[in-house]
Every structure is written in structure tokens, then in C-alpha cells.
């Protein structure tokens, strides 16, 4: 088994200030090791897709990147997560500040039970943005970035729950963008959406990657192939293969990767 693992030799990026990567990151639920010593880089202006069978630790890994696993009692971690030259997995990290840098969107759209406007203004208000004008601007620019502005600009005061599922998901993306993160974490963001909405979300991801780094978990191989630049294949908490998406999908080094991708494509 060990022998078949690809040595992640490509995982030695230059340690610059603008670095974002994990180093030997292990995550435990109690004594169960759900993620086993994973080192992965997340290059600038790129989409990294995490793929692998159910229960292999994709969500666990993703959630650890903004320390969301802190909210789960019994969850601990080892190793480092480097952002801008700082190990944010160290114990003294200001988690609140950190999370401003890293947006997150889940599988099921989950707008707050508030108006569209209030959903977007929620985060900025906590980060000291004051005054109606400043908030108005952030609301508009966030909604524009999420390609939702034209659809909702006349109904900003209406409940966010009145939007369609696809619109709600884009609203959640806009909400995540409202605090101007450098990194966006997406956990199966389109798997609860219809094909048209999925297309819109994918389009959006492609546009957004010009501005920030995106890490996306997906079960949809076509989607991973369409939108990601790098792909990481997880199996039972281990990183089996990592590389350029094209390479991983057309000519994987590991047979396990190949079987998984073929199986999911077929």
C-alpha cells in the first residue's frame, strides 16, 4: 500500500510570503485519524479540487483550513497550515481574524433568516464597517461578484429565503465574499443544485479564481475537470495523488486514482 503512494514531490513550492499550504496536517476525531499527514499547496489564482470516495476526509480537511473543526468537540489536529508565512494551526491564532481571510460555502444553501441585504452586511458589520453608504457599496459589489446583483437589486429588503436554491447558493457565495477573503473553501457547492444553477456557480468559480484561491470538494468528476487547475485525490484520509488536473485526469500516476476517476466518469 505504502509503496503505491505517489511521493508528493511536486509539493515543495517556494516558501514565499504569499504562501498557502498545509504541511503534514493530521486531523483526529477523538483517537480516529480522519486525515493522515497531508501536505498540499494551494497556488494563487487557481482552483484546487479535492476528490475521493465518501468518508475519505475531504470535508474534514477543508474544514480544518479555517479552523472550523474547532467547533467540533473532540476534534484535534497536528501539523501546520501556512498562510502568508504564519502557521494558523498554532494554538495562539486569532481564529476570528483568520476566518475573515477565508470564506466558506457549504453543500446546502444556508442563508440567514434575514433580508438579502442583511445577509451580505452581516460579516462586514462585525469587522468595523460603519455607515449605510459603505455597507451599501459592499452589498452591491459582493452581489456583483457573485453574479447575483441583477437578479436581486430590486428586492434587497426581501427575505433571502424567498430566493431559489441556486440563487440562495450564490447569495451564500456573495456573503462569503463580503469580508473580502483571500481564500474560498467550497464543500460540494453545487451538488444540491439543478444543472442550470450548477452551470452558473461553475462559471462564477472560474471568474472568482482570478481574484482569490479556491479549494473545492466535489463528487462530480466532470465538474472537477471543467473548473479546477489542480486535483488532489484522497483515499481513507491519505493523499494518494496530486497534480495538474489535466495530468491527473488523463494520465494519473496511481492506479487507484485511475480506477476512481474512470469509475466515476463511467
Amino acid at each position, binding site marked *: 500500500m505504502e509503496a503505491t503512494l505517489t511521493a508528493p514531490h511536486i509539493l515543495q513550492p517556494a516558501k514565499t510570503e504569499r504562501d498557502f499550504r498545509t504541511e503534514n496536517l493530521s486531523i483526529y476525531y477523538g483517537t480516529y485519524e480522519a486525515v493522515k499527514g497531508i501536505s498540499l499547496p494551494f497556488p494563487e489564482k487557481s482552483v484546487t479540487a479535492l476528490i475521493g470516495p465518501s468518508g475519505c476526509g475531504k470535508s474534514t480537511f477543508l474544514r480544518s483550513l479555517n479552523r472550523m473543526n474547532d467547533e467540533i*468537540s473532540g476534534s484535534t489536529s497536528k501539523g501546520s497550515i501556512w498562510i502568508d508565512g504564519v502557521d494558523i494551526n498554532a494554538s495562539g491564532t486569532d481564529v476570528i481574524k483568520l476566518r*475573515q481571510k*477565508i470564506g466558506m460555502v457549504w453543500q446546502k444553501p444556508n442563508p*440567514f433568516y434575514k433580508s438579502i441585504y442583511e445577509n451580505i452586511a452581516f*460579516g462586514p458589520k*462585525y469587522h468595523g464597517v460603519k455607515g449605510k453608504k459603505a455597507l451599501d457599496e459592499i452589498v452591491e459589489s459582493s452581489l456583483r461578484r457573485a453574479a447575483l446583483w441583477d437578479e436581486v437589486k430590486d428586492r434587497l429588503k426581501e427575505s433571502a429565503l424567498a430566493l431559489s436554491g441556486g440563487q440562495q447558493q450564490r447569495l451564500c457565495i456573495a456573503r462569503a465574499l463580503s469580508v473580502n477573503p483571500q481564500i474560498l473553501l467550497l464543500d460540494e457547492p453545487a451538488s444540491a443544485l439543478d444543472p442550470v444553477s450548477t452551470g452558473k456557480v461553475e462559471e462564477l468559480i472560474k471568474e472568482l479564481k482570478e481574484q482569490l484561491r479556491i479549494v473545492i470538494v466535489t463528487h462530480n468528476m466532470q465538474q472537477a475537470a471543467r473548473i479546477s487547475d489542480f486535483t488532489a485525490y484522497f483515499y481513507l484520509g491519505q493523499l494518494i495523488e496530486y497534480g495538474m488536473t489535466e495530468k491527473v485526469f488523463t494520465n494519473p500516476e496511481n492506479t487507484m486514482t485511475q480506477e476512481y476517476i474512470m469509475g466515476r466518469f463511467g
Partner: protein
Amino acid sequence: MRVQNNETMRVQSSKSRIEKHHIEDLVGRSYMSFCVLLLIVSIVSMVYFVTSRGISTFAIDKVSISDFFFGTTWSPEGDHPSFGALPFIAGSFITTLLAALIASPLSICAALFMTEIVPGWGKKLLQPVIELLSGIPSVVYGFVGLSVIVPFLRNVFPGQGIGVAAGALVLSVMILPTITSVAVDALSTLPRNLKESSFALGATRWQTIARVIIPTTLPAIMTGVVLGMARAFGEALAVQMVIGNAPFIPTSLFESASTLTSVITLGMGNTTMGSPHNNALWSMALVLMLMTFLFVFVVRMLEKRRSI
């Protein structure tokens, strides 16, 4: 030949099985219909009974509706009886509202403690306490109120200790478990990702509780508050033990007063059926019943709003 025999036997047995099913089904259905019918009949007859008795104050004894609802003098016996029920209606509303005001924040805090702040041992510790509290008979609450709360109030505040404040305090303890358990249910059905979305935007735990968790669950929590108020409004025994039972509108929290329920329980045994006094008590029972309907209606409305 043998094959054929087998065949017919199989057909027969399956036929009798079907019939057995039919019979079971029929018996089950009739039993269930009977139970439902019994339930409907008893509810309808109770409503009819209370209503017909309740309106005889106005129809037979010719008490004017405004005298009953807004009159402040209650002297049901004698040559010139007066049936002003306002003191009791006011007493019921004041104690109920005060109890809800005291109990709601405490219950919500307890529920947040159990679900958000220390979900592990907080829930393990408090859940049995809450269940125990709701199982204690009301006479025990009244007794504790009489021997603990009343002396305390007497020592600290002016007055006899007995009165509106004592009644409201006893009631608030009694409705605490109702509101808390509804609030706990509401809080634990909140999708985890909703909370995490708030954390992910850099909100702290307290900001998340105040701005996301409480607003989202408020309609459900309000259901608990209304259910608690319904219980407080209908509670008789414990209140009667500590409120003083004076037929006046209280002008301070530490004065004696009465509630609809306490007047009914105290008066029912001492009046003859059909007398104006007795009828007036039925009218108050009618008011209680209508209030209960109102509470149920409000709960329904809240539930409806929640499901949108």
C-alpha cells in the same frame, strides 16, 4: 393430481389469510373510529356545557356583559349582588404576563447553555432537572411558594408576602420547564451549517448567538412561551395558595389579588348549581376556555410562520 391438490390448498390458505387481514383491519378501524368519536363527543359536550352555563349569567341573570367584564366589585351574594369579574381577569393576566417575563429569559438562557455553551455535560446535568421540574405536582409548588417565597417577600418587601409577586414567582418556576424544553428542541434542530456560516464570517460565539441563533429560533421559542403562558393562565392550586385571594385589582405587586382559576376553585364548592353566583363562576370558566383557545390559535400561527 397431488400437484393440483397442493395448488388448491395454497389458494385456499391465501384466501383465508386475506380474510383474516380484512377482519383485523375492520376491527382496528372501528376501534380507532370509536376512540376518535368518544374524543370528539367529550370535547364538544364540554364546550357546550361550559358555554351554555357561562352565558346564563347574561341570558338568565341579566347581568350586562360590560358589568361582568369591566365591573370591579365582586359581591355575588346578598340582595344587591354585583358580578364584576375584572379583578380576576386582571389578576390572571398580570400574574401570567409577569411569570412569562420572569421565566422566558431564564429558560432561553438555560436552553442556550444546554445546546450551545456546554452541550456535553450542560445537557446531561440540566435535562433531568428540567424533566423533574415539570413532573412536580402543583400543590408542591404552592407549598414551597408558601413556605419559602412568601416569607422571603415578607422580609424584603412591604406587605404580607402573599400576593401578586408571590403568585407570579411560583408560576414562573412552574412554566420554566415548558419553555426550556421547547427552546432546547428548537435550538437543537437548527442546521449546524447556519451557525458555522456565521463563524466563518468571523463572528464570535456571542455574536452568533445574538444575531443568528436567537433570531432564527425565535418563532419556535415564542411557541414555548405561549404554551407556558397557557399553563400559567390555567394553573389554579399553586397560585391560590400564595396570592391571597382578595377580590380587588391589585395596585402593587405585593398586594393580595385573585385569578379566574383561584376564584372558581374556591367558589365552586360553596355555591348551588344554577344560582347567579354559580353561573358567574361558569362565565369565568368560559373566559378561561376562550383564552385557552386563543393560546392554541397563537401557537398555531407561530408554527405556520415558522414553516415558511
